[in-house]
């Protein structure tokens, strides 16, 4: 029972991310130059991401993990997010005078946890991945120790997060009791449809629903997102969410009991989450908080595609492949856009993150035309307007919803898109059409820092690329005929 070399190659990304995290912590007493640390962290993130090419597809560690194009895709996604967040955090840490090495190390640890989540094939492994990413996240949320909001954010996240993890763990226990295994494949083959299994699956869904901020498990999201340092918020909105969705989709499609049983759960979760997120965002005057509510809403849109999986799975020709593709494409576009948007918010916020209200964005169109243009692009993408990534993401979700005859869910999604129009456009209106108030921040940056600008440019180009020429990425996400569609 000795792991093979091929097994090691399949977790190479996690090893590299963790290794560089430890390495950075060792460097901390020696290297005082923040930029060197940033560089090392970026190299670590990039190497880990690139090493996904090295692993051979297949199951590793006796079925604990499944390394396939699906998990490769999510490794890429979380690795890219980590890379961008580290780059964006460089100027933030300088401005807020925070320790860099630990920060980067925690980001890399969290990323490794997300990687485990994306390839976990066994529930306890998934639990370890979840804890790895969560514990690092709790610390990151409270990283601005002198700020009350940041500490509040950390405590809230920790308490509610542990609670949700307990649900998840309890669910695993019940599923084990019903099926005699924690391995997804074996649970699937031991599928008995017993009520114990169903109860376990329900608890698992609650635990994961918390992590992706699906209503009614979303109450922590606005406070945590608002209090956390903004680059960390960017990470929260993109990485853990995508990785948890990855796990959720894997469980959902592998265990047939879940596919049928969770259908209505997803239907209702999607509808409620969309409304809670959008209606909550409408009344916000703090842009960071508004974006937090918007990520709840987007979790709802993604869940619409989940609901479509159940019906599409019966289609003998294509199976649920279009629904998976919709989820993957949506998450990719959404994550990049959120990272870009939060990076701009972080820069506008100024020292101590004081300038986050709508009024502080007034007149940005003339003060910082490029930042305002990029922010508008991101908001339009979140809104789902053509030639942006968000549009195609939404289109694919709409498409699978309609073709699996979930017309009412599609209509609810349309209604929510209209609500979304209001608050996304309000920011654009404020940036371009409101004059700056007299007591405007004097020390507000006149332009983005070079590193943040790089992040914004990458995110903006990716948004346009996915919006104009989605063919290539779509080809990748459509080829996910991996284990997901087979038993």
């Amino acid at each position: 029972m000795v792991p093979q070399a091929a097994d090691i190659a399949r977790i190479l990304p996690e090893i590299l991310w963790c290794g560089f995290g430890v390495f950075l912590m060792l460097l901390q007493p020696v290297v005082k130059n923040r930029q060197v640390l940033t560089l090392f962290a970026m190299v670590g993130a990039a190497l880990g991401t690139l090493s996904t090419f090295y692993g051979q597809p297949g199951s590793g560690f006796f079925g604990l993990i499944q390394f396939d194009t699906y998990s490769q895709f999510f490794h890429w996604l979380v690795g890219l997010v980590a890379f961008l967040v580290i780059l964006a955090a460089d100027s933030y840490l300088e401005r807020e005078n925070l320790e860099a090495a630990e920060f980067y190390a925690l980001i890399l640890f969290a990323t490794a946890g997300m990687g485990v989540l994306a390839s976990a094939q066994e529930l306890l492994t998934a639990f370890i991945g979840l804890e790895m990413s969560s514990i690092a996240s709790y610390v990151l949320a409270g990283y601005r120790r002198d700020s009350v909001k940041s500490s509040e954010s950390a405590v809230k996240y920790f308490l509610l997060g542990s609670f949700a993890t307990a649900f998840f763990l309890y669910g695993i226990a019940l599923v084990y009791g019903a099926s005699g295994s924690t391995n997804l494949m074996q649970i699937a083959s031991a599928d008995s449809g017993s009520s114990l299994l169903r109860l376990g699956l329900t608890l698992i869904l609650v635990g994961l629903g918390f992590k992706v901020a699906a209503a009614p498990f979303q109450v922590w999201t606005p406070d945590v997102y608002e209090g956390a340092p903004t680059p960390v918020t960017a990470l929260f909105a993109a990485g853990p969410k995508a990785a948890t969705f990855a796990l959720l989709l894997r469980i959902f499609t592998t265990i047939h009991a879940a596919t049928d049983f969770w259908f209505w759960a997803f239907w209702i979760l999607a509808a409620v989450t969309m409304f809670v997120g959008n209606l909550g965002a409408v009344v916000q005057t703090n842009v960071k908080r508004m974006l937090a509510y918007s990520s709840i809403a987007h979790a709802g849109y993604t869940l619409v595609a989940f609901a479509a999986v159940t019906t599409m799975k019966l289609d003998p020709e294509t199976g649920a492949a279009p629904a998976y593709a919709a989820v993957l494409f949506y998450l990719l576009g959404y994550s990049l856009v959120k990272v870009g948007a939060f990076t701009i918010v972080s820069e506008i916020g100024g020292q101590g993150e004081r300038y986050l209200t709508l009024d502080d964005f007034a007149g940005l169109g003339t003060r910082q035309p490029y930042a305002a243009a990029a922010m508008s692009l991101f908001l339009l993408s979140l809104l789902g307007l053509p030639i942006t990534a968000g549009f195609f993401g939404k289109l694919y979700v709409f498409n699978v919803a309609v073709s699996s005859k979930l017309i009412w869910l599609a209509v609810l999604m349309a209604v929510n898109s209209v609500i979304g129009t209001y608050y996304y456009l309000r920011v654009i209106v404020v940036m371009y059409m409101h004059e700056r108030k007299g007591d405007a921040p004097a020390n507000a940056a006149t332009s983005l820092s070079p590193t943040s600008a790089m992040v914004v440019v990458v995110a903006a180009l990716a948004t346009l690329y996915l919006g104009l020429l989605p063919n290539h990425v779509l080809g990748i996400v459509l080829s996910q005929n991996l284990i997901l569609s087979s038993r």
Partner: protein
Amino acid sequence: MQFGGGILSLLIFLPMLGVAAILLLREEDHLWIRRVSLTVGIVEFLLSFLPVWAIPAGAPAGFHLQEFHHWISSPHINYHLGVDGISIFLVHLITLLTPIGILASWNDIKHRVKEFHVMLLLLEVGVVGIFLSLDLFMFFLFWEFGLIPLAFLIGIWGHERRLYASVKFILYTMGGSIFMLVGIIYLYSLTGTFDLLTLQRMIHEGQLVLPARTEMLLFLSFFIAFAIKVPLFPFHTWLPDAHTEAPTAGSVDLAGVLLKTGAYGIIRVCLPLFPEASHRAAPYVAALAIISIIYGALVALVQPNLKRLVAYSSVSHMGFVVLGIFAFTNVALQGSVYVMLAHGISTGALFLLVGMLYERRHTFEISEFGGLATPMPKYAAFFLFAALSSLGLPMLNGFVGEFLVLIGTYQRHWQWGTCAATGVILSACYLLWSYQRVFFGEITNEKNRALPDVNPREKWVLVAMSFLMLWLGMHTRFFTLRFASSCQEVLQQMKSNFAHEAVYPAVPSLAPGTQEDSLRRVVSQ
């Protein structure tokens, strides 16, 4: 086979080049920004004559200068452009009104000049794209694309309540278009194609027969988006605000072309794709159209604000367009297209004139004026000409279209025609009455005594518009010959479907391969 060789793509994206050129100029270099955008506007206008030559008078119906490229593999989205007799003149209208708008705001717009011209040209891209797209997806794409620049035009360079008007405009139109998107996707899930010509043929040949309820829902999902844009009563409430608060160039573009995209959508999408539903909805739509005509005119009658008056007159005129479309006679449909062109010119001219007055006095209130004919005789003459053309004086453009609509409607439903005809009388009332209050009598307000008359720039803009009014009014055949066959084609597609109405064959499931082949066939025809 007839391929466009990229003329239509050039027509859509030439303003983009202008945008790039303007972005390279310095922010303070106002004169050159104006010159560059004007040049681009004029070149675009001249370029839009090329398709007119390509469509000889009396040419058979169908789409010319088609361009077809694969764009996105899944879902099958193609870059498919084409032009026919109906769309070509609407394209003309926008390419004409854009340089006119640039000229009209030469002195008017003083801040954020660069962005202003960028937005005007982007708007042109969007609107030309709407008229030339033959793929529902592209159509939707340009439809959304055109919204943003106009919302900015209203919101940044508008008058006092500009923010309210801008947000209202965008919420209304987006609210409509999201349901159109659901409709487009649903149609795609039924047929596997976004291509308008393929869809038309499938419906026409009975390959695709929609159950009555589905067809009605699809019809409504498109129609509501279009009705908001037209705007049809009761979806019109955004229009007076948007018009009143928009800068002159924005109002001209809004009245001139944005409203037409809605009517164009009805002709291009609703009628051929959902003929049964259109027939069943016709009485209700016609009722709304007649309400629009009369209600718009009555509200215009009591407006104290000159610009709002012109805006409500738009509601009334666009009611004629919708009525003509839903009369389903060739004459009425031609009349509708004609009203669209005529309304673009005369209402555009009226907005220009009102804007010039605003530049001088900074108010739209009719009560502030009176006796303006004495200090500004030339201006008064131009205004009278535009007002007469708008109210439908024979020999001028407004007459032809409304007359054709009324005749065509009368052929089928005399009641509708009779009701709508009162709109013509009412339009004479509100225009002449307001003209009298603004221009005749003693000068009651001292501020008006020394108002300067039109300057050469304004004069030439107005001369051009007046010439067009006369030309559209006299040389009717030049236009009708070119779009008559296209109008006939639209009605033909509706009728022949009716022949199948007794039989409802099962919906054939189409393999993707056969669709592609049939698409090719259509293109190569």
